[in-house]
């Protein structure tokens, strides 16, 4: 399997069995992002203590890319300083996902990152 194929498998795994799906108890930063073009939706929830993200969960609806990337992002953020999220760029996150998404689906892939960043900003 090529790296690209491995990435695609990982995406599918996350899509089939999303990590950290559901309601986050004690969430103190959350945001819903919506792509009007396809209806894809991600509601991202964070529990922040001081400068650290203690926990992250999401719920959502949409294509495999939008949902799997949200699932992966929850994994990535747990226990990390807020700074880590803030410095995570769009292209950096796309690199982590490892799949090639065309311009039309980039927005889907970035839905969760946008939601997470906005959640932090709004909680300030």
């Amino acid at each position, binding site marked *: 399997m090529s790296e690209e194929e491995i990435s695609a498998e990982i995406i599918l795994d996350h899509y089939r069995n999303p990590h950290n799906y*559901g309601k986050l108890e004690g969430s103190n930063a959350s945001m819903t992002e919506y792509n009007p*073009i*396809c*209806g894809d939706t991600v509601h991202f929830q964070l529990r922040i203590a001081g400068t650290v993200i203690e926990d992250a969960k999401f*719920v*959502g*609806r949409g294509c*495999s890319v939008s949902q799997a990337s949200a699932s992966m992002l929850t994994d990535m953020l747990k226990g990390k300083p807020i700074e880590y999220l803030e410095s995570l760029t769009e292209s950096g996150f796309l690199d982590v996902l490892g799949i090639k998404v065309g311009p039309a689906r980039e927005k889907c892939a970035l839905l969760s990152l946008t939601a997470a960043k906005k959640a932090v900003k709004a909680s300030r």
Partner: protein
Amino acid sequence: MLDPVRVAKDFPILSKGDLTYLDSAATTQKPVQVVDAIEDYYYSCNSNVHRGIYRISEEATERYEKARENISQFVGSRDPAGTVFVRNTTEAINLLSYTLGRQLKAGDEIVLSVMEHHSNMVPWQFLREKGVVIRYADIDSEGRLDPEDLKSKIGRKTRIVSLTHVSNVLGTVNPVSELAKMAHEASSLFIVDGAQSVPHMPLDVKSIDCDFMAFSGHKMLGPAGIGVLYGKPELLMRLPPFMGGGDMIREVRLDGATWNDLPYKFEAGTPNIEGAIGLSAAVDYLRNLGMDNVRRHEMELMDYVMKRAGEIEDLTYYGPRDPKVHGGVFSFNIGQIPAFDLESELNSRHLKISSQELHPHDISSYLDQSGIAVRAGHHCAMPLMTRLGVQATSRASFYVYNSRDDADKLFIALENAKKAFAR
């Protein structure tokens, strides 16, 4: 009869064999005949039209005006003065909304339908600012325009009825002659969005008796950047100009201007000359196939597609079941992804999406891996998506170069997609 395999040989992008193109409702591929006509223009008489007193400019003018006549005849209009070149269907309808709109006042009504493309919706919505009321006719459960509902929406205050001839999502073929009668009986203008009909069926603006019709070159084997607004000349004549500039004037003074004759009054600035010439070549190509054959081919193909679709579990498709009133557009979903509701989702214990649901984006990406091009999304018809209770659909659309083989490839890949994404 039309042989799609032979037709496809005229399309270099298709004859390589690695592409199953099922997105002709978005834009069609171009045959060599069209590309060659454009190239020949560039290399033999490229120049600006209408005012040059030298050989190649006269030749360019002649080709441009012959293109107008040819396209005009193709839709059954005898007077080329009623054929205005625009960029696309969208511009044609905006031209109407701006010019007809100036004559409307608060309380006047425009009747559309819920199946309209954004291009036949947003330009009219602009007029709400001045108090114009937009009313929408509904569809029935098979995606057909509901005639009773339409009748109830047309009334004393209706000034414009603007409807699509063929829906780009449902495939529904609307009975435009009857609709024209309905509109005219109410002393309303009747406008046809022909973007999905002119390319696909024999059609005659005189027998439809529409007042205006809009269509795009790029959806009928022609280039992008060129489209047509057909209008009854006596109606076009009475409209104010849309854009100002070169060619559309007769005389300009510092304190004002007078307008040129039809159709030039509506063609400001240097037109897309090569676009018109390319579109004319496309019309020749289609006429050569025979529009009756084109329609029959698509009807037979849709008949086959709908049969095959019935064999796939969890596949829902939209639009009329009768291929006679269904164009070459096949919109579908696998499973029905329910609308997202945050509260209920947060409080449920498990994922609300079950195994059989497949998002149109995923379908489209998966099909792409097999070289099959279909469209996924709202198809510029968001209000229709809402009406159907879906967020998006996948859409495979067929044209003269598509065969049963292409349909087979689609359905085989769909079965595979279902397996690949199964949870």
